């Protein structure tokens, strides 16, 4: 039994400039403790763990998997008198895998906007590689999201614990999670197909892409495939997707679709503008009765 205990990978969750949203999101995982049973949690921001922050700052804690939460800054953020960047560099070297949990740790996120020149993600600054990239790229896994989805993190942790390779894209995001867009599986897809925008807030009907700023069609993430809190998603409850997994999140005017002469300024991921507009012109020429009335009143 003891030997099994010792063979478990040591998990260290380290926070930088953060709101703790990723920490609390992960706590929602219904199988949290069975997932964690595959690891030895050496440090975690809220769960009981073997080592304190004072231990961490002594740079003597063992670490196999490093989870980073929060935006990165080289100087000015200390814990127990030690620069967090120094701790990250140390444990990043120790670890076999580094997971940047959340958009802040991955690309810089919201907190980057306080001091864009000095605050960034750990290995990426928006999309650009930081000077740390070369050193850590071989062990880097990006899990952007504001916050991360608990099941995205558990997928990565379980793959690592089983010794499986995780297929990644150029920004080191697992393709099984980020190969989809938030649009995939949205319950409003029929309205997108027929280019019917929603007529207001608080309606089941209508697509949020044309007026309300929804970034779902060009935002990577499986929010509508693996539901939030095992229940729902922003777009399912009528809230536009704010593109929170993307390198340039958050953009400005999040509740408004940017358009040029009424044409959405950003096209669905990978769709050529000409193809999109051709389709738009065609489908907009038809008036489909079912989509022009309240969904539950049709056929009544």
């Amino acid at each position, binding site marked *: 039994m003891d030997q099994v205990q010792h063979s478990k990978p040591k998990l260290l969750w380290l926070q930088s400039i953060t709101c703790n949203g990723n920490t609390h999101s992960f706590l929602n995982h219904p199988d949290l403790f069975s997932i964690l049973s595959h690891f030895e949690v050496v440090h975690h921001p809220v769960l009981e763990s073997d080592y304190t922050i004072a231990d961490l700052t002594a740079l003597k804690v063992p670490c196999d998997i490093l989870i980073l939460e929060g935006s990165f800054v080289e100087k000015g953020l200390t814990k127990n008198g030690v620069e967090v960047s120094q701790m990250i560099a140390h444990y990043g070297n120790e670890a076999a895998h580094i997971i940047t949990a959340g958009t802040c740790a991955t690309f810089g996120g919201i907190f980057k906007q306080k001091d864009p020149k000095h605050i960034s993600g750990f290995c990426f600054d928006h999309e650009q590689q930081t000077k740390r990239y070369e050193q850590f790229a071989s062990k880097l896994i990006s899990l952007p999201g504001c916050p991360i989805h608990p099941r995205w993190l558990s997928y990565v942790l379980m793959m690592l614990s089983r010794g499986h390779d995780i297929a990644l894209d150029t920004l080191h995001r697992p393709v099984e999670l980020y190969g989809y867009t938030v649009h995939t599986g949205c319950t409003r897809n029929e309205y997108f197909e027929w280019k019917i925008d929603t007529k207001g807030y608080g309606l089941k009907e209508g697509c949020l892409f044309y007026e309300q700023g929804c970034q779902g069609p060009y935002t990577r993430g499986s929010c509508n495939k693996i539901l939030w809190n095992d229940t729902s998603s922003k777009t399912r409850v009528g809230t536009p997707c704010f593109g929170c997994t993307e390198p340039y999140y958050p953009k400005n005017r999040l509740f408004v679709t940017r*358009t*040029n*002469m*009424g*044409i959405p*300024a950003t096209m669905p991921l990978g769709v050529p*503008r*000409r193809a999109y*507009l*051709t389709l*738009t*012109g*065609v489908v*907009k*020429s*038809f008036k489909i009765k079912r989509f022009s009335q309240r969904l539950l009143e049709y056929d009544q």
Partner: protein
Amino acid sequence: MTDKKALKRESIIQAALQLFSSNGFHKTTIPDIAAKLGMSVGNLYNYFSSKDILAQEIIKYTSEVLGEKIREVNMLDVSAKEKIHKIVEIYFSMAQEKPEMIEYFLRVYLSNREVFSDGCEGMVCVSGFITEIMIFFDDAVSSGELRNQDFFSAFGLFMGYLGGMVFLKGEGVLPKDISYYIDDISRNIYYALKA
């Protein structure tokens, strides 16, 4: 479709286009078109199963020809002002060289909506052209050259103006050759739409 068949199909469209534009849609019959081409009525029906369908195919054809030309303009690395000039030039030279195409659009497509109601709703048959105009507007607004506004308020200004000029030409009202107006009209459109 074999090349030969495609050529035949296009020649039918060309012949019908001329007859519809000059004699009117209702007055032109399928036998008239067949006669002009020296082919049998039965054979023509192998290509187009009805006059309405032929009419719809023609509008798609003209929209694609026009769209293809505007697409070339969209690909150019020039200012929106120059693009407007080129689009106006294309439109007017088409009115000069292939008046039947523009005439068809104005006199047949817009005047006989019942023929197009089933299969050519809204923009379905003119999407080849509309798509390129959308792309032109989209580019020009995102580069900051044209003012952002509703699509139809800009589209109506641009195309209504050009259509109106071609209509006047068709009525024989214009005192000068239509190409004479290209510079002024391009400038007017640009100043009306610019940011």
